[in-house]
């Protein structure tokens, strides 16, 4: 689903926190702005972020540090009808 706004499915970033990673993505792909997070910086309802397989989608967990190598997955819930 994200491919409408981000042409690649795998990216590298030097961001030091999850929040900084999202900022980095939005600066590289401007159409992503406001799509993953609302104006308060909270993740939109169906957006989930996993760091090394752990769900960090609460707003406080956006501060999760990323120093060193990590795998971050940004996924959407299957929802709707």
């Amino acid at each position: 689903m994200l491919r409408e706004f981000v042409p690649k499915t795998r990216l590298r970033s030097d961001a030091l926190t999850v929040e900084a990673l999202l900022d980095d993505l939005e600066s590289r792909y401007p159409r992503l702005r406001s799509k993953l997070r609302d104006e308060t910086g909270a993740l939109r309802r169906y957006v989930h972020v996993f760091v090394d397989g752990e769900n960090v989608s609460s707003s406080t967990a956006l501060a999760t540090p990323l120093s060193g190598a990590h795998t971050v997955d940004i996924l959407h819930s299957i929802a709707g009808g």
Partner: protein
Amino acid sequence: MAETKVRVLVGTRKGTYIAQSDAGRKRWTVGPVSNAGRDIFHVAPDRRHPGTLYAAVNSGFWGPILYRSKDYGRRWEEVATPLSPKSKDRPSPFDEDPAHPTVRPVTNLWHIEAGHPDEPETLFVGADPHMLFRSDDGARSWAPVPGINEHPTKAKWNPGFGGPCLHTVMVDPRDARRMYVGISAAGTFRTDDAGVHWRPTNAKVEAGFLPEKYPEVGQCVHHVVFDPSDPSVTYRQDHGGIYVNRHNMEGNWDRVGKVRGGPKSDFGFAVAAARSRPGRAYFVPLEGEARTTWSGGLQVWEWNDANRSWRTLMSPKKFPGDFGVQREGLACDERDPAGIYVGTTTGQLIVSPDAGKSWLQVPYAFPSIHSVAVA
């Protein structure tokens, strides 16, 4: 040379459609869906720029996004979307201080309105929660309109059943500085200084769900339109009935929904008026609790303000069933005889090419229709 094509812009729960016909408006084709799967609350033409359309595209996944087409809907591009200022503050709504309202994220875009012809790059978007935005650069950027977004009466506003939305935006064609907005559930407001100051315009509009029957604000207006041939006249479909105001929304509203010979219920959402039918307005009255038509079929009613009378334009036997029509689900075109267009929540697009004398259904099963407009 006069434009021969008639295009009806259909905003649905699952995308945007364009239905096309010739001037006869009897044979219709429907183009492929755009913005597939997204909740399109409103599709609106910008007649100052022929071919230009805007779509209020709402998505549970991506949030609100504004799209524009410059070729009558063949191709769409994302343009700047009006959003609240960024803020990391999220206090509990129970701690809200009405004197210092919290900045809230835009949840949905509800209505797009082109500005006055003298201001060809100006646009307005109504959104929830209870917000108006203005662009003066053709949707490259947006600014909130604090005069209404932070109105002194805001502590008395409530959400409507569909959410706390600013859903109606009207620019007076005679004066770019005069505008009206409709808000659920706050009522209508008017500005005469291009949005700096606004005053409520709800005199004698009933709010039966509040302790005070005729409050200054708090009404759940559903939709309001100008009489295109005389914009000092406005027609209002409110939760509390059908009303007319004949003096630029000054003074009392006249509840014409209770005039003898009218519909048995003057509840509803939609209202429209046609330039070639001065002094008339069209409504789809609904049963108040079910929010669907009664009498076993779709009905469209015409109010004649000149002789204060009602008539029904459609027998319920014509389209049997239980129909819902939302606030943007009724429109008229600029032609003579007037075309009248009804979009239902069960996905039917019903057309009259002759001001209500006859009716046909466009042969296409749409998803639930939120809005119809004519480009």
